[in-house]
């Protein structure tokens, strides 16, 4: 069958690094060059005269007629489909290849076709892998709980995720292609360009949340939104692409304000209480003392962190045995409270001026629940002076 070519042409084609087949109108292989033999795993004598479907075939589920398409492409050698459509090659081992083909009519009278084959299997696989990675990354960006805004070298928006749409009240379709400074209050716009330009020229590839102060965004309804921002830059073909991750901190700031207000209220109540109050950790170390408790102690240096039963307001008894017995009793009471027991008793304190006070004394556990676990987080020690209510002995 190789008589289809003269010897000089055959020598040229056998020298070509690109795989070449010549087939006739019926789809029979009339010639394959050395590169085609190497690609497909066949010798010329094995394949010449065989149907081209031996080595190029449709895949299961496809209805493509290979010979008809080769003829179509031969009639239209610059068809756009040639860039995108690939045929499936089947090599001798049974493995499949994705083949990019070009076709030319070799002999109009006999309708022989010259077909060049290029193995694009790895190229297609890599292309697919990149597309899948892009899809996964894009889906993550689309649904992530921070607003993501990309901008080009001219600071025009190129990407705007769903959270950004919700945050700023504009759709991606409305903002893409527009200046990113539209997302900033007017008073920041002039300096913003300078900041971005400085970042573009800086050595650092990224600036993370926490490395810079709070910024302010402008929603479509005119509301100014406090934001934390991270920014990174990627240079593509020498041009920067900026990607900004924005976190709405309105809720966090409101929670911080509410927490501070609550702390202030409870701090006031704690400090203004007539009872002496101490907050003690489960091991007995003093965490806090209110003003009434501090007034009893006078010098509070060293009181915080000290074991509750060693505070100087307990009577300094000359009888060491009795003093130790009382300390152990208080230590035991704290330990029992740390296990959840509420303790209330009458106690005796000595103030700065060595005045004795009879105290209605209690230890109460402060519970903390984390998940299904409930534990004593601290102990509230309270003492109410009832000296005036107790008949003198």
């Amino acid at each position, binding site marked *: 069958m190789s008589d289809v070519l003269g010897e000089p042409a055959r020598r040229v084609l056998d020298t070509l690094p690109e795989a070449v087949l010549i087939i006739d109108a019926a789809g029979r292989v009339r010639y394959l060059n050395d590169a085609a033999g190497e690609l497909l795993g066949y010798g010329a004598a094995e394949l010449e005269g065989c149907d081209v479907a031996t080595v190029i075939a449709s*895949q299961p*589920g*496809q*209805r*493509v*007629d290979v010979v008809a*398409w080769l003829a*179509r492409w031969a009639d239209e050698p610059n*068809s*756009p*489909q040639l*860039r*995108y*459509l690939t045929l499936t090659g089947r090599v001798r081992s049974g493995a499949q290849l994705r083949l990019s083909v070009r076709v030319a009519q070799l002999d109009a009278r006999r309708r022989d076709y010259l077909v060049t084959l290029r193995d694009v299997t790895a190229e*297609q696989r890599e292309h*697919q892998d990149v*597309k899948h990675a892009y*899809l996964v990354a*894009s*889906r993550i960006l*689309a649904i992530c709980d921070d607003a993501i805004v990309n901008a080009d070298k001219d600071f025009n928006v190129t990407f705007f995720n769903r959270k950004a749409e919700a945050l700023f009240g504009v759709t991606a*379709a409305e903002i893409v292609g527009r200046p990113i400074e539209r997302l900033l209050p007017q008073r920041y716009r002039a300096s913003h360009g300078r900041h971005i330009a400085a970042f573009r020229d800086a050595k650092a590839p990224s600036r993370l949340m926490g490395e810079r102060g709070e910024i302010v965004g402008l929603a479509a309804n005119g509301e100014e939104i406090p934001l934390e921002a991270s920014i990174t830059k990627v240079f593509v073909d020498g041009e920067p692409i900026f990607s900004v991750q924005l976190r709405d901190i309105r809720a966090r700031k409101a929670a911080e304000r509410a927490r501070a207000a609550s702390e202030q209220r409870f701090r006031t109540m704690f400090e203004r209480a007539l009872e002496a109050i101490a907050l003690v950790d489960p091991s007995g170390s003093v965490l806090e003392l209110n003003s009434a408790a501090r007034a009893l102690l006078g010098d509070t240096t060293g009181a915080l962190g000290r074991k509750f039963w060693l505070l100087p307001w307990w009577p300094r008894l000359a009888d060491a045995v009795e003093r130790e017995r009382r300390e152990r009793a208080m230590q035991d009471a704290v330990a029992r409270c740390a296990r959840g027991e509420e303790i209330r008793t009458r106690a005796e304190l000595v103030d700065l001026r060595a005045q004795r006070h009879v105290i209605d004394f209690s230890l109460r556990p402060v519970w903390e629940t984390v998940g299904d676990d409930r534990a004593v987080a601290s102990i509230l020690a309270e003492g109410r002076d009832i000296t005036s209510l107790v008949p003198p002995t």
Partner: protein
Amino acid sequence: MPRVTYIESNGTEHVVAVPVGVSVMQGARDNLVPGIEGDCGGLCACATCHVYVEPEWAKRCGEPDELETNILDFAFDVTPLSRLSCQIHVTDALDGLVVRLPERQY
């Protein structure tokens, strides 16, 4: 804006808004719907945006022309409801369109 439902071969549904005039293929790509590749970008030249139009929508989507019919040769598991989604352009009349995606585009 008309809404289009894309149902992946595994049953996952994506309901997205697609502007009038935009192709069903582009609507999928813009909304990160997996399973529609659209390698040629809408030239009707690659058969990687193959979909099955739900029967009740087939008539409103129209018939494929000769080029599309030819290119469908390269799609997999083609049925009478097969279309290349780059050749279906969204109109208000297609609000609610449902298309199913094949198991493979390559």
